[in-house]
């Protein structure tokens, strides 16, 4: 099973969690995070367009994954992110971690999310009935990195 995936097409978080859990030999704890496309600023979202930087995206996700595994002694970790045009309600990305104990699995997943948000080259654009606007980065997201 691929541990870093950048794809346009849909995915099923449950199917990925099952496959990931089945391979996590010796794990006592598995944490997953799934992000769902929803209105961020606008309230009449028609679609979300996600641009990325092919090549750099995969390298950045591999780097984030390796750092999470080393830092929290994870048994395994997975990162998947979609790009292109997504509809509201579509799963947009997912991370999963497997560890011996629950604290490492939780911390590993939060670390992956914080770095992915601010260090992986993805940009979201909200398409509404009346126009389109790039989603602004949140100061909170940058600040979240300082805890690691």
């Amino acid at each position, binding site marked *: 099973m691929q541990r870093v995936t950048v794809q346009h097409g849909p995915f099923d978080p449950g199917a990925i969690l099952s496959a990931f859990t089945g391979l996590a030999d010796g794990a006592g704890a598995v944490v997953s995070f799934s*992000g769902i496309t929803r209105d961020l600023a606008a309230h009449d979202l028609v679609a979300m367009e*996600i*641009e*990325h*930087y092919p*090549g*750099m995206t995969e*390298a*950045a996700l591999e780097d984030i994954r390796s750092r999470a595994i080393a830092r929290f002694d994870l048994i395994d970790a997975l990162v998947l*992110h979609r790009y292109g045009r997504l509809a509201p309600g579509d799963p947009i*990305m997912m991370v999963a971690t497997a560890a011996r104990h629950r604290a490492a699995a939780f911390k590993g997943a939060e670390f992956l*999310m914080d770095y*992915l*948000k*601010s*260090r*992986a*080259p*993805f*940009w*979201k*654009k909200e398409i509404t009935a009346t126009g389109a606007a*790039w*989603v*602004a*980065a949140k100061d909170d*997201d*940058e600040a979240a990195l300082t805890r690691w």
Partner: protein
Amino acid sequence: MKIEIRYFAWVRERVGAASETLETEAATIADLIAELSALSEGHRHAFSDPEAIRAALDQTLVDMDAPIAGAHEVAFFPPMTGG
């Protein structure tokens, strides 16, 4: 030297191109931004707020004072909003 410049998200939209090739003697990312800003109104608009610009050198995030000697590709884009 000849360098490939790539733009993403609103930087790309303001510049009006996804990429371009530049012959430059710029020493750092910041020098390169100064040079690019003078190219057109679109470039100037794209780089008007330096705080809002991130740069990657051969697909690795770098600071504004990073030297660009030997690089093949430099990319400019807004703060990332994945996840």
